[in-house]
């Protein structure tokens, strides 16, 4: 056990830190449209600096660094308050799945534009009636000569209006739920695909709905065998979590520092109840960060991400929601004014226990796959 960075890791961290302070693009614009362009330019800068696809193998255009270095990079990005690259979905989910399950042709065709941001990806899994029960997707892909014809609706997908490719999970048969799903890479730039913004409880529209009306997918854009989409998608979701939780914890720590400053600014620091609620959040955020590093060490040992990511997901949602509530209590009646960044965070955090797998589903996963308890379904 050694919790200090190795000389190589230290050197990498210092390189990243220096590079970020030099190339930091400054604060993000407000309007969603501008944000995408801003992040596309930023991704290009990261790419030119060699900081995209940190842990991707070199032969696939990545940096070939370790998962630990990827985690270090994530933390430095958070510490520098640097925005994420535009094509985060492609980098975290789309690319790794093609590397793991795709053909050489697909690797040659899709990986490079994911890295340099020429092609943005979006996720096409969730549907109005397939949320927690992902296997219930009803979007259908029917074989037509040369490929597939897609009809259905997807929801909760971000940047869909700017995406070139969609990771599409569609039904290709009528047998048992998990057995007849197939994973496609669907071109978003075609008449059969319509994207509508979806307004959330916060008032923002981070997400979209996608409507497929006789959209077409070439058969060479299918990943994995017909009917094997469930397994492909599951890997995708596991990659989504691996190595992110330590950086997420750091992001929360920075918000907790802001909250501590707010408590001082409002002269509430003599209130031991607020202080202890803040301390309890600091403790839980620290254990989340440490769980993340222990999990990462296990992933590195095992080579593949495991279900432990569910623990971090539960902690992350719980901490963010308590943080938002504490901030409102610090602000008191002032918290009624929605211009406060804290109000927005409080509202946004309510989705944390739903998006990316509800906390209930995460507990099912832990109970069944970590504790080996019998399943009800």
């Amino acid at each position, binding site marked *: 056990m050694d919790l200090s960075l190795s000389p190589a890791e230290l050197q990498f961290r210092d390189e990243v830190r220096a590079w970020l302070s030099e190339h930091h693009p400054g604060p993000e614009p407000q309007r969603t449209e501008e944000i995408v362009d801003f992040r596309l330019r930023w991704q290009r800068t990261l790419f030119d600096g060699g900081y995209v696809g940190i842990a991707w193998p070199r032969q696939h255009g990545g940096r070939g660094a370790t998962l630990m270095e990827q985690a270090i990079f994530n933390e430095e990005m958070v510490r520098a308050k640097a925005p994420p690259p535009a094509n985060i979905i492609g980098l975290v989910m789309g690319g790794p799945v093609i590397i793991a399950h795709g053909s050489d042709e697909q690797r040659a065709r899709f990986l490079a534009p994911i890295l340099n941001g020429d092609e943005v990806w979006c996720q096409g899994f*969730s549907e*109005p*009636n397939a*949320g*927690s*029960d992902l296997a*219930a997707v009803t979007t259908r892909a029917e074989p037509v000569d040369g490929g597939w014809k897609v009809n259905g609706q997807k*929801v*909760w997908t971000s940047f869909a209006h700017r995406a070139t490719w969609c990771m599409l999970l569609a039904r290709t048969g009528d047998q048992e739920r998990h057995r007849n799903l197939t994973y496609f890479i669907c071109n978003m730039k075609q008449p059969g695909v319509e994207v509508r913004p*979806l*307004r*959330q*409880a916060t*008032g923002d529209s981070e997400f979209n709905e996608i409507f497929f009306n006789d959209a077409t997918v070439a058969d060479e854009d299918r990943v994995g065998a017909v009917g094997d989409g469930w397994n492909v998608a599951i890997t995708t979701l596991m990659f989504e979590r691996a190595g992110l939780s330590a950086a997420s914890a750091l992001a929360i720590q920075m918000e907790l520092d802001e909250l501590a400053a707010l408590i001082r600014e409002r002269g509430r620091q003599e*209130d031991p*109840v607020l202080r202890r609620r803040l301390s309890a959040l600091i403790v839980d955020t620290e254990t989340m960060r440490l769980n993340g590093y222990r999990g990462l060490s296990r992933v590195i040992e095992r080579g593949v991400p495991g279900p432990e990511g569910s623990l971090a997901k539960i902690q992350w949602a719980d901490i963010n*929601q308590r943080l938002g*509530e504490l901030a*409102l*209590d610090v602000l*008191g*009646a*002032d*918290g*009624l*004014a*929605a*211009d406060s960044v804290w*109000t927005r965070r*409080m*509202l946004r955090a*309510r*989705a944390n*226990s*739903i*998006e990316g797998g*509800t*906390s*209930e589903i995460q*507990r099912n996963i832990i109970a069944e796959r970590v504790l080996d308890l019998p399943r*009800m*379904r």
Partner: protein
Amino acid sequence: MRFDLSDDQRAVRDAIDELCRARWDPAAMRRRVAGEDDGSQLWRELAGAGWTGAAVDQSHGGQGLGTVELALVCEGLGKALAPGTFFGNAAAAVLVQSAGDEQQRQRWLPGFAAGAMRGAIAMVQPDGSALALDADGAAAVVLVGPGHATIAAADSCSFESLDGIDVTRRLTRVHAAQAEPLPGDCGPALDRLEVAIGAELVGVAQRALDLAVEHARTRQQFGRPIGAYQAVSHRCADMLLDVESARSAVLCAAWTADHDAAVLPFASSVAKIAAAQGAWRVTGSSLQVHGGIGFTWEHDCHLLLRRAAASGRLLGGVDSHLDRISELRGLGPRSTTVSA
């Protein structure tokens, strides 16, 4: 002893529910959220039916209903996410009636009761400014500060509208150029208002629970209604416990306000705490039970959560009421009395 509503009280509850069904359905509420309805139509309905005078005694042109009845009206309006105009007017009336002098009563109460001159209240903040909900269009504003209250005619006030977390009501910052103090002790009046806020929160929580149970019965995942899973059904059971506990506390405090002044401080603190915490937990749980759909702007879950967050922080917050209870029990720095 009988702890349930009398027939007259049930009639009040049903009348308000009926009025909201007819005049403040979800569509009207959404128009209000979108800024396309200033709520004046509903106000005229409330005035026409005499509800605006519910909290004003008959000698000043009101109906002089009891606090239980006032609470039932607030609960019904909360359930429908109606504007805060009724509460603001009733709050101003209660304060003027119990803390104002006879001249102030003569000047303001008849107008408040008839709905012709609407009253509102604003909470004075540490920085001296005051925050109010749906105060625009009011004829007078009662500014409530720690331990004292003043009343200002609207024409001597400036209203700066803010974006509020609670989009079902309009948040404004009020500056009063000149305001005259209400000479009396406003403590008992404020306790009654905490009960009224608690009642509104009970309505909000009840609605959030009803939506969650309905969704849990019908939403299918993994081949079953999600209400068949204990992660959902036990959450709903806890929501019911919160709603019923808040309702019991609010009804008891409302009855106490009219029958047992000595116990009112304790009863109203219990009511505000149970209602504020209960409504916050229940509206949050309801959103969770709804999943993604509950996080969309079109769904009412977030409106209920926003309203619970706002009303729970009107007048006294939960912590201040917890501290008052420990003082009433003889604990805490400022307390000298001995535990009951």
